[in-house]
């Protein structure tokens, strides 16, 4: 479909971290991403939210071609991004850009802002007046043109991230992956960055895949929200619907743990659900639903059968047995 910029189908990434033993060469894998499907529509912001270790950054790295998926497909405007493995044609690279979490590490300390911003221009827009383009980019993100002579360590954390955003925009992309762009920054700077991102999205008709662990941030930024838990998506919904009618017990747990300030907010917020237990190891996933070890509404079936994503209302899907047709235990045991 023309409207859908990025389509992930049953996307998987299993990292091999070792082998059973010297004799038994069965690989031990971490299922960082384990069968994820989602669609990003043109011009929207899809918020991908999850705890650390849920595989959300791995999805970002696969989309920009840093990591090769072990299964499934990733389509950009109908084109398979991994048709040639990690090799990717320049026009395709131009369309998908990424802003990394740590601006300290994403800008080379030995290169000036000018050199940093010139790199994408040299590769993707040869023949253009580089100096003029750098000034235009800096102006776009409201940085003074004189900054091009500075080194990254002369900039504040927020300014570094703004430069990283300018670099991502240098190729004039259509899809920008934001991998926790604000989580390394002060709260005061976070707002500034978010406003800048929203302004740029309007100006250039950008599509964002916004990856974060900060659910409350998504309320203001995302048009749709997808929740990840242990390498899987467990709930997807439009932002308004999502915050009002969270379906999955995990989502309810997350939403109930957001601190609130006013009485009015307290009234809307779901009742506090104490999260129990630790997040299981992705090396050794629990049988059945991966969330059953912490779920407050756990049923017998959850320990045996893995639920599937089912629609609960328009544009709202959840992966939970609460919303599936009841399943009966047969003489052979639980169906798998």
């Amino acid at each position: 479909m023309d409207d859908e910029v990025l389509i992930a189908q049953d996307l998987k990434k299993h990292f091999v971290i070792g082998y059973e033993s010297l004799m038994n060469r069965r690989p031990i894998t971490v299922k960082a991403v384990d069968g994820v499907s989602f669609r990003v529509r043109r011009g929207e912001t899809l918020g991908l939210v999850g705890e650390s270790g849920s595989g959300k950054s791995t999805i970002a790295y696969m989309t920009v071609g840093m990591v090769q998926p072990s299964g499934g497909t990733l389509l950009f405007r109908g084109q398979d991004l991994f048709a040639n493995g990690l090799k990717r044609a320049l026009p395709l690279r131009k369309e998908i850009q990424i802003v990394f979490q740590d601006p300290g590490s994403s800008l080379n300390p030995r290169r000036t802002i000018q050199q940093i911003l010139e790199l994408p221009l040299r590769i993707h827009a040869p023949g253009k007046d580089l100096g003029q383009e750098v000034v235009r980019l800096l102006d776009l993100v409201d940085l003074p043109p004189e900054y091009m002579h500075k080194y990254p360590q002369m900039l504040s954390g927020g300014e570094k991230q703004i430069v990283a955003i300018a670099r991502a925009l240098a190729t004039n992309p259509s899809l920008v992956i934001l991998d926790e762009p604000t989580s390394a920054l002060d709260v005061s700077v976070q707002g500034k960055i978010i406003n800048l991102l929203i302004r740029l999205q309007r100006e250039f008709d950008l599509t964002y895949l916004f990856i974060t662990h900060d659910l409350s941030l998504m309320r203001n930024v995302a048009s749709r929200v997808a929740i990840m838990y242990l390498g899987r998506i467990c709930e997807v919904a439009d932002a308004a619907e999502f915050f009002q009618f969270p379906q999955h017990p995990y989502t309810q747990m997350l939403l109930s743990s957001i601190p609130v300030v006013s009485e009015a907010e307290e009234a809307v917020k779901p009742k506090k659900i104490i999260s129990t237990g630790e997040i299981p190891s992705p090396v050794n996933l629990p049988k059945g639903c991966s969330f059953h070890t912490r779920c407050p509404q756990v049923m017998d079936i959850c320990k045996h059968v893995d639920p599937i994503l089912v629609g609960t209302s328009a544009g709202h899907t959840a992966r939970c047995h609460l919303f599936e047709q009841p399943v009966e235990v047969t003489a052979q045991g639980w169906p798998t």
Partner: protein
Amino acid sequence: MAKQGKVEKLAPPITRQYVRELQRQNRMENLGRGWYKFSRNPLSILGAAMVLLVTLLAIFAPWVAPHPDHAEPFTDFGHAHLPPSLEYPFGTDEIGRDILSRVIFGFRLSLWMGVVVLALVVPVGVLLGLIAGYAQGTRVDTIIMRLTDVFLAVPPLILALAIASVLKPNLTNSMVAVSLMWWPWYTRLVYGLASTLRNEFFVSSAETMGASTAHILFRELLPNMISPIFTKMSLDMGWVIIIGSMLSFVGLGVQEPTPALGTMVAKGARFLPDQWWVSIFPALAIVAVVLGFNLLGDGLRDLFAGEEV
């Protein structure tokens, strides 16, 4: 953010000159901090002074040496084996040559050897280390690093002796011999640095942009390794000079009458202990050069220690 930033921007007039001034201040500040760290250890200053002195002596040898002609074929048996005096501060050798003059010219040769060896070894070692470190985990990495292991496994001096004795014993061949055993150390150093740096996001960023491998190696990775490489080069100057002196001591380096410190120590050793000055002063000269470069290297290491890599 409705372009409010524009108004704020006008407040301090950020002109090109202002930024230049800012950069200059920043550089001076770094320089000052660097000098402070370097000068906190008086030994580093001593090392720097020694290296500077030896370098100047070597460059201006024909003008500084009291008897520059003694570095060439020369005999004056009337003045053989004279003890140190005002005329001959380090004394004279068995054929009447001024030892001080020959030591000064000997510095020339030692430094020349160090410079040439490092000029051969550093580019090769650094390039291989960059490639192997960036390609970590691939076959390229394995081939390069196992090759360096092979070279490192051979005792360095024995390899140099073998090469120098198979080929004709002269300066070029001893430099080739030392270079052959020296490059793996740079490969190892740079390999370690590159394999850490390649995981930085600025490298991933350049990769996803579609930058060439050459750009990533030389523009993204290499500029971040300059300080450790320079430190090692300073320390290695001393080592190369020692090895060079060893080779000439056993007669596999520079041949007479060209003055080499190692050869002078070897020839003078016959006259110990009576004519001690023939051998002791060249030996002390070797100690001075090597010590100078080592102290300077330690100082540079302190200087770069606080720097983030």
